[in-house]
Structure formats: structure tokens, C-alpha cells
């Protein structure tokens, strides 16, 4: 053994460190900082940031071959198991009764998906091929699991920037949406009060809804079946009221473990070599646009509904149709409340918000169906 010849070998970590690694580690530290000190989506940004850190430590071997991150990626991202398991947990936390009590709110969940297609158009315009443009567009679903599911199918090489954009901007919704709301609605519109005289929803309806929805969406858009069915499975576990054990498992161990592993592995795809390029910057820009387009389309459709309903509908709830459950719903209610402290539109906004969740999954499935056929 020649110890002197060993020494450079022992410094190999530092010798292989690149400026790209340094930049990505800085980005990782920013994500971790936002998660801890700004409490922005910490359950996702903290693991993503930590995964990014790991991916940029040279020769650590965690993201290649039999490394832990590679093992988790193959087990849960390639197979789409992690996003689907997260949906089981999210489903067990969603309450569809505000939507079932006011079914017309569903329309807002359709309008709020325009950002998907608008962003696809823009991505095509600046030169992305169709499969990649569609994956970028689906950032406009404003729903992490849907974005990851579609991107994994159409353009897995873009998964990292797409997931990062989806989750980062989602956490910035309280900053992105209010200026648009104020710009696109008049004070008079924001002051509209809405009656909430809901039909009471029976337990039977609540239990039949997820089953029926799985069937109808599954038959119409087979590509959306995995996403919608797992969301509805989680919801059925909860509302059925007879499988408390499984419902609690879905809301706790299943979603927690899947979220931790998903965050880590998504972060671990952010190595300097694959992340630092022009495409990433474009995707981050297009992703922001997707959020803006969604919100604008939702608000404009809300204004249309306000007119058609003779101003019985507050257009602000249109902004809740973009998905981003449950933040967007609460934000719309808060903006109305800030304008008039006596104006409560939370239940209507939550109806639009859950509709946006469904609309996002359906739009993701439709996009997947069309684009899979064309490429």
C-alpha cells in the first residue's frame, strides 16, 4: 500500500465537487430554509431539499445503482406507487359534502384547469416536444401527485423540475393569487354575499359518491383511473365509517411514509448534471405561468357565473377552482372576508376547491390520453 497515493483518493469527494454542485446545494439550503423558517410546505420542501443535498455530494453513491435513493425511486416513483399512496391519504382527508351540497360549483373546477393547456401551448411555442410540453403543462393541475404521475408517464427526464415547480409554487399561492384576484374583480364583486342553505348530505350519498365517481371517470377517462380511484378509495375508507383502522392508516402511516420517501427521491433527482440547464429554467418560468393562467381562467369564469346568476355568486371562488386543496379555498374565503369582515364564502370556496381537485385529476387523465395517442 502506498499511503501517499491513497491521499488524493481520500480527497476524491472534494476533488469531484463542481460549481454546479455548489449551486444546487445552495438551492437545497434555500428549500430547507423556506420549509423550516417560512413553514412553506415543510412536509415536502424539507425532504426535497435534503434529497437535493444528497444528490450533489460527489461519489456518495446514493442516487445510482443500488443506492438508497435509487432503490426508493425504482420502488415508488417508477411504479407511481408513492403519488398514488399519497392520494389514498389525501382522499381520506377530503370532505366532498360542500361540493355535493352545491353541485354547480363543479363548473369552477373545470375552468381552473385552463392553465394546463395554456402552458402546453406556450411550451410548444418555445420549442419543447409534445410529450415534454404536456408534462410541463400539467404543473397547471396544481396538484403534486397528478403532476408527478403524468410526468412519470410522458417525460420522466423532466420529473425533478416539474415536481419542484409544482410544490414550490403551490406553497407560494398566498403570494401569487391575491394580486390577481384584486386585479380581475371589482370591489362590488368581491362584496357579493352567498347564501349557504345546503341540502343535508346523507351518509349514504357520501359513501356512494366516491364509488360512482370512480366508475364514471374510470369509464370516460381510463388514463385517470389510477389517480381518481386512489383518491376515492381513501375517501370511501373515511366516509364509510366502518373501517376506521384503514382510514387512520391511510391518513397517517401510509401518507407520511410515502410523502417522506417521495420528497427525498424527487429531491435526489436534482443532481447538478441533470438539473442545471436551460430547460429547467424554462420549466420553472412556465410553471409560474401555469399558476397564473389557472387563476385568471378561474376568476374570469367566476365573473361569468356571477353575471349569469345575477350576482348571487362571488367570482372570488373561481380562484379556488384551480385545485391546490385546501389552501386555494381558504385563500378565496379570506380575501372576501378581508374586504367585508361579515362575508363568509368558505363553504362555497371549498366546494369549488374540491371540484378543482377532481377537475385536475380528470384533466391530467385527458391530457395523458390525448398525448399518449399522438406521440
Amino acid at each position, binding site marked *: 500500500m502506498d499511503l501517499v497515493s491513497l491521499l488524493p483518493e481520500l480527497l476524491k469527494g472534494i476533488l469531484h465537487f463542481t460549481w454546479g454542485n455548489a449551486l444546487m446545494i445552495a438551492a437545497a439550503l434555500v428549500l430547507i430554509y423556506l420549509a423550516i423558517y417560512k413553514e412553506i*410546505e*415543510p*412536509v*415536502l420542501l424539507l425532504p426535497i431539499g435534503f434529497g437535493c443535498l444528497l444528490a450533489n455530494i460527489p461519489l456518495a453513491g446514493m442516487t445510482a445503482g443500488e443506492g438508497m435513493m435509487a432503490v426508493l425511486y425504482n420502488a415508488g416513483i417508477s411504479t407511481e406507487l408513492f403519488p398514488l399512496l399519497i392520494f389514498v391519504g*389525501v382522499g381520506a*382527508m377530503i*370532505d366532498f*359534502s*360542500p361540493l*355535493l351540497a352545491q*353541485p354547480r360549483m*363543479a*363548473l369552477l373546477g*373545470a375552468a381552473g*384547469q385552463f392553465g*394546463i393547456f395554456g402552458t402546453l*401551448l406556450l411550451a*410548444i411555442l418555445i*420549442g419543447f*416536444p*409534445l410529450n415534454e*410540453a*404536456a408534462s410541463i403543462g400539467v404543473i397547471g393541475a396544481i396538484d*403534486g401527485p397528478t403532476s408527478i404521475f403524468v410526468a412519470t408517464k410522458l417525460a420522466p427526464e423532466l420529473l425533478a423540475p416539474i415536481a419542484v415547480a409544482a410544490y414550490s409554487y403551490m406553497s407560494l399561492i*398566498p403570494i401569487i393569487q391575491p394580486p390577481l384576484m384584486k386585479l380581475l374583480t371589482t370591489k362590488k364583486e368581491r362584496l357579493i354575499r352567498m347564501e*349557504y*342553505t*345546503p*341540502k343535508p348530505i*346523507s351518509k*349514504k350519498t357520501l359513501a*356512494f*359518491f366516491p364509488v*360512482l365517481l370512480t366508475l*364514471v371517470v374510470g369509464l370516460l*377517462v381510463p388514463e385517470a383511473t389510477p389517480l381518481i380511484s386512489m383518491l376515492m378509495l381513501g375517501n370511501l375508507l373515511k366516509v364509510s365509517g366502518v373501517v376506521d383502522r384503514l382510514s387512520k392508516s391511510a*391518513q397517517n402511516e401510509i401518507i*407520511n411514509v410515502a*410523502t417522506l420517501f417521495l420528497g427525498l427521491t424527487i429531491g435526489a433527482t436534482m443532481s447538478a448534471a441533470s438539473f442545471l*440547464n*436551460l*430547460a429547467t429554467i*424554462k420549466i420553472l418560468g412556465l410553471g409560474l405561468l401555469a399558476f397564473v393562467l389557472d387563476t385568471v381562467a378561474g376568476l374570469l369564469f367566476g365573473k361569468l357565473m356571477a353575471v349569469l346568476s345575477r350576482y348571487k355568486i362571488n367570482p372570488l371562488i373561481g380562484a379556488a377552482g384551480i385545485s391546490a*386543496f*385546501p*389552501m386555494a379555498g*381558504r*385563500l378565496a*374565503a*379570506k380575501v372576501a*372576508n378581508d374586504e367585508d*369582515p361579515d362575508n*363568509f364564502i368558505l*363553504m362555497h370556496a371549498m366546494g369549488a376547491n374540491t371540484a378543482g381537485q*377532481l377537475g385536475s385529476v*380528470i384533466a391530467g387523465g*385527458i*391530457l395523458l390520453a*390525448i398525448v399518449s395517442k*399522438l406521440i
Partner: protein
Amino acid sequence: MDHGLSSIVYGQMDINMSDTFIQALQITALGMGLVFGAIILLWGMMSLLTAITADKDSFHASRGRASAASAPVMDGELKAQAAAVAVAIALAEQQTSLAHPLPDPPTAFVSAWQLGMRTRQMYQKGDSFRR
């Protein structure tokens, strides 16, 4: 990886891109149409579902409607107090709501709304309906 440049350089590519863009426009039209179609179907399905099950739950339904209909507004001064409560709730919720996809159990917002309504009813003084 530089997608932006490679397809603009040549005129022919430009034409191709134009074709692709037209295709993308078609996808957009078809996609948004289908999304709206599916959601409208969903709307009908939900209306039907609640209508069918409402018949069987008519007793509860009517009772529920009655109580909701009889919830009048409160007068000025008390409004402000109730609103303060509700805003406090909304703000408190906002703070805890950042951790998507791990939201609070949604009963939270139901009860927030109910609390708001109850506050209203508590302070109500037999005013006429506002409509």
C-alpha cells in the same frame, strides 16, 4: 436540452413548429371541451345522486332546510363581533393550512363555518330575512 433554439433555426422546422402549434391548439380545444364535458356530467350525476337520496332522507332534509332558512342576519354592531371571531378562525386555519398535501381533517372548515353561523344565530334579534 436547448429546445428553444433547435426548432427555430430552419424555415422548415418553423413550419413544423407551426404544425405542432396547431396540433397543440387542437389539444387545448379538445382537452378543455372534454374537461368541461366530464365536469358537467359530474354535476348532473351529483344532482341526481343528492336528489335520489334526499327523497329517502326527506325528514332530515326538510328539517335541515328549515333551520338554514330561518337563520337571519344580525344587526350592525354584533356583525362586527361575529366577524372578528370568524376572521380569527380563518387566520388560524390559514396558518395551519400550509402543509398540503397533509391538510387538517376537513371537519375543520365545516365547524369553522358552523361556528360563524352559530355566532350569528346567537346574536340574532328576530330581524327579517335578508335576500
